[in-house]
């Protein structure tokens, strides 16, 4: 069970790392990448936890969930990148402006 636990721990680590990057970086591309790293972390946890017992065939349901999750992540990333390009074209910077609309 220990290697499964290790994978799950690495997945959680990736999630945390992505969360940290999402908060500290201002450039939108880095934020989008951070979200993707977080997503990979979650997928890793799902795949790792699919191994029920040593030697037994892994549970296929989490794998199906990961595939669905990847599809969602790809579409979300595409939308995010398209939005980023538009934000840059409109404001000249690929960042979220801090000043709020009055």
């Amino acid at each position: 069970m220990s290697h499964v636990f290790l994978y799950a721990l690495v997945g959680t680590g990736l999630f945390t790392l992505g969360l940290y990057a999402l908060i500290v970086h201002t450039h939108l591309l880095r934020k989008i990448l951070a979200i993707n790293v977080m997503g990979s972390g979650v997928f890793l946890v799902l795949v790792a936890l699919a191994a029920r017992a040593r030697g037994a065939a892994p549970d296929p349901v989490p794998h199906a969930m990961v595939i669905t999750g990847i599809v969602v992540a790809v579409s979300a990333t595409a939308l995010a990148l398209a939005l980023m390009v538009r934000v840059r074209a409109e404001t000249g910077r690929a960042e979220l402006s801090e000043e709020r609309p009055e």
Partner: protein
Amino acid sequence: MALTMAAIPWGVMAILLPLAGAMACFLSPRRASPLGLITALGVVACAAGLGWQVAEQGAQRYAIGGWGAPLGIDLYADGLSLLMLMVTAVVGLGISVYSSGYFNREKAVNFWPLWMFLWSALNALFLSADIFNLYVTLELLGLAAVALVALAGGADALTGAMRYLLVSLLGSLAYLLGVALLYHSFGCLDIALLAERMEPSPAVMAAMGLMSAGLLLKTALFPLHFWLPPAHASAPAPVSALLSALVVKASFYILLRLWLDVFPVTAAGLGQLLGLLGAAAVLWGGLQALRQTRLKMLIAYSTVAQLGYLFLAFPLGSNVAWQGALYLLLSHALAKAAMFMAAGNILCFGGHDRIADLDRVAQRLPLSLAAFGLAGVSIMGLPPSGGFIAKWLLLEAAMRSGQWWWVIILILGGLLAAAYVFKVIGYAFTQAVMTHEARAVPATMEWAALVLALVAILLGLVAPWPLALMEIGLPFGGEAAG
């Protein structure tokens, strides 16, 4: 006749019809508006059909493809999902009618398919019976909503949409991690099965924390509300209406489902925390709304405050409290949609939404101002509106459980709401220093707002009927909880 009615899977239709409508609007952009309206009418019919079915035969379960719960995906409709579906149908029809007048041809081509996708995602979310399907519908909803915010164009709307997208993805990933932990612990995703197998453990607590945090972020509970006002205020008027009225409620609905069915009830401390955050949201949202100089920002902060009320039910936890929260959700959906539509009319009419320069809107757009005022009555919680019934139920629950301090929050929140609604109405009667040329507003847009506001008031007069519907399938665990 009744037999054929009963044989039709109305819930599945309510998901498939808007999906088909979205495709039709996308493929035939020149006829997008009439196609969208026809679809909207169809979805209302589906919601009514499902309502009949649930009222006649009790809670409905539908196994997609005949696979059944552990492996396949089930749809489930009880009183709670039915009411969510119905309020979505009513507000959705109003928004569709409003949008047919609001958008020019160029924008309408993009609006209709996205709105139909969003509607489909909402209906699927309210009918989903397993936690992974809820994740997928949550993402579909988020992506469609972000695209709709960006539809307004311009720097404000685009950065608002971008921030909304990042927040939304963060929320869903936290939720998904929780799903992974729950699946690992119990080997199933179906809510009913999870409820049976549930045992408290550290993994369950972690999942509960992650899923709640993700959903609270998406529901914009104070202090996680920072993304909501810019996104909701910068979107086009019908989009603001549907975001504030429906989309934020979807994540609250999931939280409510998980809290009622899946998570162990031992987490009383967390319930108190949610109640405290809700109370802070009521006060902070109200004060911020009062400070705003722009009408749409004011309404958006009012949403932050109203969302706070929903969380007052968590520390109370009784049947009456849940009913109150759900009633507030329903009446707020109708009233807030009407308010944003009225604001959209004012914006369209005068070209701006500065509250101080409203310039005799009362004489020039009487229907829209009436809609705003009536919606305000429900937001403040004055009788005989739906908001009044909701606050009354919450009040009763608070007094019964002896937690009287929530009553103070309810009263203060109502006073703040009255202050910001009257601030707008006051300026609407006076003449501004700067006059401006006005543009005509289509009658459909004025009437759509007014009718929704009237339904919000009506909800206070027909209270026994929705309250009876809520009890179907005992989503709140029956009378014993009271």
